[in-house]
């Protein structure tokens, strides 16, 4: 990937993070913002969907590398959840872009190849990031990691858009919910 590829992908993430159902970005928007022509972009990325796919991969991989690196720091679970949340909040555009275009998140993907790639990638990173766990199969790594990952992304999004305040209490709530589940907050005996 050269510098121009990178600039195009970063601009895609920036514009895609602002996507709304009634308004999405075009190749022309990216081209205009970078003083390029649409053909300049198409000569590097054959279509809008391939550009989005590459940008999603770039954003997701950078998130996973950061989380993988956190494992070298021997953090407590609560400290780990804070660092994960900090990352997603600090990388606001990346987070909203992944929310808008990432597989297994807010939009359905109908492509079998995309879904297989999503499954394999999530399993790979799940095994690395959940290295303190001894899960029984790839299926468990895939599922547990995808469920954990999406909880962080949604929590960060809700904080950034003002639905939840970023307070120590709310962060503790999130850590308990992810770590120990909804039953931690229920009254009475488990049903």
């Amino acid at each position, binding site marked *: 990937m050269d510098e121009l590829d990178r600039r195009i992908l970063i601009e895609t993430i920036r514009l895609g993070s*602002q*996507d*709304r*159902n*009634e308004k*999405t970005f075009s190749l022309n928007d990216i081209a205009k913002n970078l003083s390029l022509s649409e053909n300049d972009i198409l000569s590097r990325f054959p279509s809008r969907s391939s550009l989005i796919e590459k940008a999603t991969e770039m954003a997701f991989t950078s998130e996973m590398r950061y989380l993988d690196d956190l494992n070298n720091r*021997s*953090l*407590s*679970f609560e400290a780990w959840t804070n660092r994960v949340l900090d990352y997603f909040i600090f990388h606001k555009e990346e987070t*909203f872009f992944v929310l*808008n275009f990432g597989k*297994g*998140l*807010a*939009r*359905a*993907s*109908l492509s*079998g190849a995309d*879904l297989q790639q*999503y*499954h394999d990638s999530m399993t790979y990173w799940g095994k690395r990031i959940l290295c*303190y*766990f*001894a*899960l*029984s199969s790839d*299926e*468990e790594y*895939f*599922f*547990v990691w*995808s*469920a*954990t990952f*999406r*909880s962080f992304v*949604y929590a960060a*999004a*809700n904080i*950034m*858009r003002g*639905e*939840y305040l970023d307070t120590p209490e709310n962060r503790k*709530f999130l850590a*308990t*919910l992810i*770590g*120990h*589940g*909804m*039953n*931690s*907050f*229920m*009254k*009475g005996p*488990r*049903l």
Partner: protein
Amino acid sequence: MKIESGKNSLENILSKSVDILSASDPQHYSSLEMAASLGMSESDFLALFPRKESLIQECRTFLEKDFFVRAVASSQNGINFEATFNALLDHYIAYPTFIRFALSYDYVFPRRELPADYAEYKTMVIEELVKPLDQIRPVKGDLEMGYQLTDHWVRDLILDCELIIDGVVPDTPAMRHLMVKAIEDGLFSFNKIPGTPE
């Protein structure tokens, strides 16, 4: 075309609209195409839904209200959360377009900005879902906590449903149990390597 008055005709239109919207990008349909797909004239369609947003909002509310009734009934009839979760999963797997519509348009999935009518939506969720569920199994905290917990498990239910519909995970009792375990008991209910950080 004269629009029949009555609940069923509007529900029918909304249900068909959900099918159409769930399979298309909102940028790429016109009111004329929507009307034709629904067997209506464009003028009748626009009289009902003057803007795309009003159609989406009506469809969203239609699905949400249906979900609230089902979720509360399943909780009342079910022996535990797992039974409720499975009953809802069974139902929605049979309606993939409802799930796909929710993924794109429901407010349970956050977008960059809070929608202008989010407060209204939240009040509706609290009144029609959180409070009835709290009567069945109360949470330790206030309604805000109940809302956050409901928000979490409903989102997980929809996403888990989509994983099954897409064939990304198998629809087996073991996988469903895993889904419930992740929601109810969290990460630490899974095997941890002894001696690792707490």
